């Protein structure tokens, strides 16, 4: 399962403008970010395709960084993305898998053990589980915590990527709970220096894996 990235950037989430996001994504990629997720629920199909193709182009110098498109399998295929990220509103994993084939990543965002098991049965490549800590993007919904994360990572064998309020300082405990990697949105999108923050995250993740 080494081909599932450890560090995922999620954007633009309405936190930054699409064009700014392209710049941030490129800086994160050059510092070792393994996957860039395009979450563009409010974009039309045409705009979403333009955005995904621009990102693919911007990242052409970083072949190690995967492009993951949220929900839109047609956009993912046309932009030659490396995979899709699905949620509770999206296609079922098995339907997406049928369209995307075996070589692309199909990630599923989950919020409970049952969902995690179901996604694994349907042959998801990995899960994104959260949110772990309190985060401004989920105001009023307390984080599910590390014990919850450990329950998910114990329940499935596929890689689990933790999301929600993750910072460099919190990486050790997240990996101790069994996470394969982490997904980060606003902490990277709003970082003064996304390249430096990514470098710190990537280094710490490497240490955690070596220690394990």
């Amino acid at each position, binding site marked *: 399962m080494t081909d599932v990235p450890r560090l995922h950037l999620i954007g633009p989430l309405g936190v930054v403008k699409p064009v700014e996001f392209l710049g941030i994504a490129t800086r994160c990629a050059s510092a070792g970010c393994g996957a860039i997720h395009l979450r563009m629920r409010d974009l*039309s*199909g*045409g705009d979403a*395709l333009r955005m995904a193709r621009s990102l693919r182009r911007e990242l052409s110098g970083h072949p190690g960084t995967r492009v993951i498109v949220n929900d839109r399998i*047609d956009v993912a*295929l*046309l932009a030659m993305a490396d995979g899709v990220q699905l949620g509770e*509103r999206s*296609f079922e994993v098995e339907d997406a898998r*049928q369209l995307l084939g075996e070589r692309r990543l199909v990630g599923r965002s989950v919020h409970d053990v049952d969902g995690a098991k179901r996604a694994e049965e349907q042959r998801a490549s990995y899960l994104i589980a959260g949110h772990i800590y309190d985060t401004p993007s989920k105001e009023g919904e307390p984080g599910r915590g590390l014990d919850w994360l450990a329950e998910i990572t114990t329940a499935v064998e596929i890689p689990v990527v933790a999301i929600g309020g993750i910072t460099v300082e919190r990486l050790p405990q997240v990996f101790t709970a069994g996470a394969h990697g982490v997904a980060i949105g606003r902490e990277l999108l709003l970082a003064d220096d996304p390249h430096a923050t990514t470098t710190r995250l990537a280094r710490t993740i490497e240490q955690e894996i070596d220690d394990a």
Partner: protein
Amino acid sequence: MSVAAESEVRQRLFCYLVTDPRIDSLERLTSIVSAAIDGGVTAVQLRAKGWKDRVALDAAQRLRRICCERDVLFLINDRVDIALACGANGVHLGVDDLPVAVARELLGPDAVIGYSPEAEEDRQAAIAAGASYLGIGPVFGTQTKADAGPALGLPAFRRTLDRVALPCIGIGGIDQANARGVLEAGAAGVAVVSAILFADDPRAAAQELVEAMQ
């Protein structure tokens, strides 16, 4: 079912039902569409904007089955991935959606790809990119689509069709009373929403529409 031949597409566009995402009970939707096909509808387009993708795909799979059994053309609005996943005959695209040429790339040469242009240059570009037919409108005033723009009226509609070599359907405010004029202006068929979808008896409404056009 391959329906790429232009003459066959033209025939199937004759009485074209477009669904409304506000009818979001799948039981109700499938029963209306079945009744409309009983009444003579020849094409169905699923519009599921705002729905969860998985619900849209579920609806698409059910409607595709119904349409396939009855030899009715079945298209998905906007979403090429849903069309691929359910095995629809094709898609109907607007100017903000995926471009016609890339949809064709994914769906293949036999797919039916409809397009709703907004300007003259959109029309020509879509034809060059491989659209199968065009939806031209709004022919009359419509309440269904708030952003549809001012009505063309029949004379302008006819002039537009004269400049287009592809099969065209009229859309926007078409009902049993005015459908014949749309055909006489040169359309291959009429697209309706409310005139069938919101009728008390969708089967009778479709039948009346077909009779009015024959």
